[in-house]
């Protein structure tokens, strides 16, 4: 898997981040690592500790929870991983790449500093 910073252009297409001022988006881009995920590979595993927040830049991911037959599909522009970070609990779902995908992720400190306020506004 290659790790390179995400670009501001890529992040500006994520709906959640559209409200961030340019300066903060720049800061976030520098701190978000871009990863290529092959089709079929796991990104998150339910029950594991969660320490990163993700946005989906390209491809399709499937979200599944043990005991639930129905699964949700994530498309470019969607985000995931915020529940474990916001509530300080293990991952509540597994996420797997259906097609080859590109995600960008940041650590908890960056999430707390730049992104947590976005979720607070939603509530």
């Amino acid at each position, binding site marked *: 898997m290659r790790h390179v910073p995400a670009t501001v252009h890529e992040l500006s297409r994520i709906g959640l981040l559209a409200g961030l001022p340019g300066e903060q988006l720049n800061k976030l881009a520098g701190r978000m690592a871009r990863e290529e995920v*092959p*089709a*079929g590979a796991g990104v998150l595993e339910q029950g594991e500790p969660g320490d990163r927040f993700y946005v989906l830049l*390209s*491809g*399709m991911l*499937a979200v*599944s929870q043990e005991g639930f*037959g*129905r*699964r*949700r*599909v994530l*498309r470019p522009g969607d985000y995931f991983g915020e529940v474990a970070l916001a509530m300080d609990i293990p991952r509540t779902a597994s996420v*797997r790449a*259906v*097609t*080859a995908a590109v995600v960008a992720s940041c650590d908890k400190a960056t999430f707390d500093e730049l992104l947590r306020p976005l979720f607070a506004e939603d509530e």
Partner: protein
Amino acid sequence: MDALLLHAGIADSRMWAPQVEALEAAGHSVVAPDLPGYGDAALERGELSYVDVAASHLSGPAAVVGCSFGGRIALELAVDRPELVERLVLVGAGLGSWDWSEETQADFAEEEALLEQGDLAGAAAQQARMWLAPDATVAARELTEAMTLRSYEQQLPMEELVTATWPQPPAAERLAEIAVPTLVVVGTADLADIRAMADRLASHIPGARLERIEGAGHLPSFERPDELNRLLLDFLR
């Protein structure tokens, strides 16, 4: 059920978006890779076995769904590696060798001529006209053109450097050996050649069921997504 979706030769994994959504929602675990030379998957010089590539995405028996070129791969996989294929779905599937009609050969020649002139966008547009139903939506045409153009960009620079290999003897000569439940799907607006291939597949694969999707061309996955989803969900239940 695990499901592997193998895209057409004028497409990439994006063609399956409506099926990924429907199958995952029903609890199936789907993998829809870009095959080498398509979408984001680059070609590497040397020999290339698409059947091995497909097998590499499976850790055990799965439903294998292939469209067109992907259908040929699914068919070869079912014959060559039967332990990996639990159900087989062939959508507008290709057979390895076929005596193409003069009309289809003329269409292939037109694509080739455009590519030789370096008109990749023109060739992609010609392919969309050739393969989609005449009343296909603008969105369906644009997606087909974008996926085909992407495949040209991936494949043309590598054309002389890659040799595709296939199991021998080919599946087309071993259809009677296929012992898994098989669904053959074809659009009523697909090429006459492809409709004839579907008839042959359905009549030579023991117990195969043939379903026709009214008005669909070669890519029912997004030309008639609801109809294909209904057939898949029913067959994979």
